[in-house]
């Protein structure tokens, strides 16, 4: 059974300080929940640079190849007008670039939904905490620690309270979720 320890901070700087302190104490399974991007949080959480750029590159290359191949298949069936050669590179470029950008965009969406985010996920244990629901998406800066050990959860609760968090709660994820 997973235990989620949640605590709310009044402002982003307090949250940043708490994340740095807890990471200094080797608490590793940390996450934050903020209504907007907080600068410096990626570094404080020790997150690597997002790999979404590689997905975009792969999608772009795949899109470009698909656009090119589609045009070649058209030319095979219906030769170009004006005695142009079948492989007219300058002519092929605009359509290829359009499909390339489309491929990159779709790859970013696919990467986020299928790989990088665990979304769509309508249910999350954090939503069980009323104070979290009422402020996490509008004005509260939340820190969460997840652990499978109940004693660790209690210790994390104590640390969060000591760091000045409000509305601290331990949510136990029900079995089978």
């Amino acid at each position, binding site marked *: 059974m997973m235990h989620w320890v949640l605590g709310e901070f009044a402002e*982003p700087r307090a949250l940043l300080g708490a994340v740095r302190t807890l990471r200094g104490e080797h608490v590793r399974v940390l*996450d*934050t*929940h*903020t*209504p*907007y*991007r*907080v*600068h410096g*949080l*990626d570094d404080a*959480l020790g*997150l690597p*640079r*997002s790999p*979404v*750029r590689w997905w*975009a590159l792969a999608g772009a290359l795949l899109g470009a190849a698909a656009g090119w191949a*589609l*045009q070649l*298949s*058209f030319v095979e*069936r*219906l030769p*170009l*007008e*004006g005695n*142009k050669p079948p492989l*007219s590179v300058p002519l*092929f470029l*605009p*359509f290829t*670039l*359009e*499909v390339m*950008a*489309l491929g*990159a*965009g*779709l790859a*970013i*969406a696919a*990467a*986020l*939904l299928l790989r*990088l*985010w665990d*979304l*769509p*996920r*309508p249910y*999350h244990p*954090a939503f069980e905490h009323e104070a979290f*629901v009422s402020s*996490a*998406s*509008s*004005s509260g800066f*939340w820190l969460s620690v997840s652990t499978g050990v109940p004693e660790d959860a209690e210790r994390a609760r104590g640390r969060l309270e000591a760091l000045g968090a409000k509305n601290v709660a331990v949510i136990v994820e029900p079995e089978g979720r």
Partner: protein
Amino acid sequence: MSGRPLLAPGSDDEALTASLFAPVWRPASRGYKRLLGFGLAGTALLGVGLVQLGRVGLSSLSDGGNVAWGVDAVSFTWWVGLAQAGTMLSAGLLLFEQPWRSGIHRAAEAMALFAGGCAVLCGVASTGRPGLDHWLLPFPSAAGLGPQLDSPLSWSAPALISWGAVSLLFGYLGLLPDLATLRDRSPTRAARLCYGVLALGWRGSGRHWAHWKLSYLLLGGLCTALSLGGQAVVAFAFATSQLTGWHSTLLPVCFVAGALCSGAAMLALLLLPASRLLGLGHVITDRHFDALNRLVLATSLVLLYGRAVEAFIAWYSGEPDADALFFHARLAGPYAPVCWTMLLCACGVPQLYWFERARASARVTLAVSLLVSVGVWLDRFVSVVVSLHHDLVASSWTVYLPTWVDACLLLGSLSFFLTSMLLFFKLMPGVAASGVKELKEELAA
């Protein structure tokens, strides 16, 4: 300009959430309902026009003269311009890290989306056979038929599809944090369910934000490229033809400038009443309108330059045909009133914005924005219709007059746009709340 605030001081995150989301929860006023009814009634005209077009075909749009591309092609290029200008504004300002973006980008994206819808409707109508328009799509058919991709005209459909899909993803990604707020603040179960499905379970996780940040930037870059490319493709469809007035390498630049000019003007036209009626004056301030008005001024100068170079080259080339088009058909012929009104509205009136008092005045902004929108529509009219009218066979020069079906399609698409924007501002926050709060934090730091 830099002295004026981007945000009215004194609001904390909770107050900003309350004020930005209030229009969504507030019951619709009587004025809003009337306006919506007016928009819906106007949209019915679109249906009438499309039914008549499907029944009769191209002859309902043209009298059989040499102007086969009439008002629908004009409206198509105008709507595409507005749509891609909306994306260019939102994504371009993101790439240039402009702080005034946060107040206007949501409305710009909505404008882009709905103007794109109108462009598709007008584009579909302008072919005269809406039932056969699937042949515009580049897919390998079993019959061996497909669009001839060596013509820029056939690049328009894939350019629009790519731009539409990527800018929809860009807009949706930006909307996601606000959808989560809507879900959490919904007063009813049904609203919570609807916004909950759209929010995908977003909980503002630090890990999610890290991917969000880079994805948003990448999609912004793609959107900017696709909208600039889209405008260029639409311009190429004209520029690669042999027709005098169309055959110009300057056309893509003029199309981008015209699009940005009408886009910024339309955005000001939408935001000025919306900010007053929805109580968003504290996040859409004079500074935003000042910046939009400056953009209108700068792009109108590019338009003026384009028109001046066009006339100069016509005179300098010594081609009697070019001379006849530019100086006889446009400036003194049957279309002279249209050309002069265009020059006055799209190039002349924005010069008022050299004066700071004009840029700061809501009434002047409203009037100039309206005239500029009309002016850029007429600019497209002059490009499309007057050049077609004045072809190489003098005996076929007839004066083109739009039909009642054209009028239905134009008024119907305008009403459809109005209705869509009204519904959007009622269902979603018109200003990106998460972006505004982030800006507030940055300004405080």
